[in-house]
């Protein structure tokens, strides 16, 4: 029921077949390079007090980019919190991703004219998004939508009941659900070896009666191939899939973490030798689809896009304090009107109670 593709993570990507869709891979590379530039800037913004605690996606670029590229507009995306590339590709502007990590819920009000409009926002409580994704998949199935739901989580999430409950119901109900685990070897400080005694995470699909794959998460072509298959299967009513994307978290857990306390420098160094962005760039260059000139131009372009996003983010007007009450219910209940009035009076120009 589950398949393991080679993931011993050689420095170079495996050779690609004759019929490779090179323009798609070039697009993928551009997205990955952009999100890496974005990620670096976001960490710097946090360090300089302009962003809150931020979960870096360093090392997860291929996984999240593949997700964003493989999803169709009519599909649904249910993220955890390291999926900035997918969110961007679904239509969330980069400034809005910063706005979220800047402590502002308006960052979750994705543009209504993009596929992201229906997607769930980041999910902080681990694995709780997975049963919700099963619910969305149930809705898609009931409505004969021929749509797939892609939900993501980390390796730590696979220890939670939610993960197993979601896979279990996806099997029983033949749901159009793809659960993609970013197995980056770490749940904050706890290594994969302390999460499960299973040889793989992918094999947990067997217990749920669904198909499972283990894939090199640092290999964009492999990720795209696997996701294309699984999402297409879901759209055609052929059931759910578990994908274990094996990668390595090259960042701290978040900007509030110091991985130096638990991660060997030599392990990190080794992981950098097979990181996804450089590997794909090398493959594209070797095949004559990318060169130094293009790289230079694109890096400058990425920097410009990120700088623009930062400027837009920093220039957002503040929220009204009453927003904390105004979106809680469809209509503000009578019981909250006095509290809302109190908030109004706390504002500059209001009267302090």
């Amino acid at each position, binding site marked *: 029921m589950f398949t393991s593709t080679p993931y011993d993570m050689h420095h170079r990507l495996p050779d690609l077949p004759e019929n490779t869709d090179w323009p798609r891979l070039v697009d993928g590379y551009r997205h990955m390079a952009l999100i890496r530039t974005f990620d670096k800037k976001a960490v710097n913004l946090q360090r300089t007090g302009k962003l809150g605690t931020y979960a870096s996606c360093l090392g997860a670029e291929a996984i999240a980019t593949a997700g964003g590229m493989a999803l169709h507009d009519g599909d649904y995306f249910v993220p955890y919190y390291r999926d900035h590339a997918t969110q961007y590709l679904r239509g969330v502007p980069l400034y809005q991703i910063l706005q979220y990590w800047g402590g502002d*819920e308006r960052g979750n009000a994705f543009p209504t004219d993009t596929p992201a409009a229906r997607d769930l926002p980041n999910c902080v409580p681990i694995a709780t998004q997975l049963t919700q994704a099963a619910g969305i998949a149930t809705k898609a199935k009931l409505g004969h939508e021929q749509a797939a739901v892609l939900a993501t989580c980390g390796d730590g999430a696979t220890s939670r009941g939610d993960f197993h409950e979601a896979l279990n*119901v996806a099997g029983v109900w033949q749901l159009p659900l793809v659960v993609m685990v970013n197995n980056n070897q770490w749940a904050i400080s706890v290594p994969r070896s302390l999460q499960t005694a299973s040889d793989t995470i992918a094999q947990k699909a067997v217990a749920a009666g669904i198909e499972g794959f283990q894939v090199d998460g640092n290999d964009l072509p492999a990720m795209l191939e696997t996701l294309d298959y699984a999402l297409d299967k879901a759209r055609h009513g052929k059931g759910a899939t578990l994908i274990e994307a094996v990668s390595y978290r090259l960042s701290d857990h978040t900007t509030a973490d110091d991985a130096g306390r638990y991660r060997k420098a030599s392990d990190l160094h080794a992981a950098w030798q097979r990181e996804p962005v450089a590997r794909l760039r090398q493959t594209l260059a070797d095949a004559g689809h990318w060169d130094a000139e293009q790289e230079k131009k694109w890096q400058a372009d990425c920097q410009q896009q990120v700088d623009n996003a930062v400027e837009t983010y920093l220039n957002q007007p503040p929220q009204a304090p009453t*927003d904390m009450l105004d979106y809680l*219910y469809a209509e503000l209940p009578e019981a909250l009107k006095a509290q809302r009035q109190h908030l109004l009076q706390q504002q500059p120009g209001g009267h302090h109670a």
Partner: protein
Amino acid sequence: MHSAQPHPDTSVPLNLLEAVNQALRHAMEADENVVVLGEDIATNGGVFRATEGLKETFGFRRVMDTPLAENLIAGLAVGMASQGLKPVAEIQFMGFIYAALEQLISHAARLRNRTRGRLSCPLVIRAPFGGGIHAPEHHSESTEALFAHIPGLRVVIPSSPARAYGLLRAAIACPDPVLFLEPKRLYRLQRLPVELEDEPLPLDRCFTLRAGEDVSLISWGAMIHETLAAAEQLAAEDIKAEVIDVATLNPLDRDTLIATASKTGRVVIVHEAPHNGGFGAEIAATLASDALMHLLAPIERVTGYDCPMPYFAMEQHYMPSVERIVAAAKRTLEY
């Protein structure tokens, strides 16, 4: 104030369980986005039969037997509701709802707020609650105060067949997440007229079940039964008790509570849940601050004891009785 008086000529006699069943049926007829899910609810019609006949009418696609996992049921409902379905999920007994708490607190109650209105979560979680039916361990708790503390989650508790019907229709129509707690001791207690054609009942108003000037008896759920009986006993001694069914714990209709306390000056709050941190404390605190100058006696609370709901051999010692309510009312009058 709403009293939901049925019209004798167009109403039908239903017990509370049948009223729930009819509300589900009519909501499903009215809106194809309404689906029901839970354990044993489809083929079996629910362990109490609240969903009896729904699968036969609406099919297994809209009436879903789930795997046995309350956390899953809540998560499924959140996901469905986030995309425009109106799921009504049954948790078989309130004692098993705690696995669903994370979904309710961290997601259902927050989704609209944290997406600034982009997504919403119009789900209903139904759960039978309360003691008095000699049920197994963990089948008789009343932990409504836990849920009333969650901003964004509406907590609704009917105490009669008519209010079960009208409030459940309103809960399903409501664009906000609703926890709908059904007092299972009342499920089959009596058939009373239920008006099936009326507008749904409001989800943020107390119901004044009996008017009076001498003392206010405030309660909800199954305890309304004892509270009304206590009012009847007091009436025999020419003490006129006003009986308020709170019905919607969150958002709370403070105005009606303040008005009754201001009118009578004497207040007895009755609930089955333990005393410490019970929802009666919120009402007492509200009245102590907003009706203080009208109060003629300390506010009394007649509640369960501060222990886990006892296994059924002792539950009659735990549950507030008519006698305890009458005695508390008299203490306020003699103060």
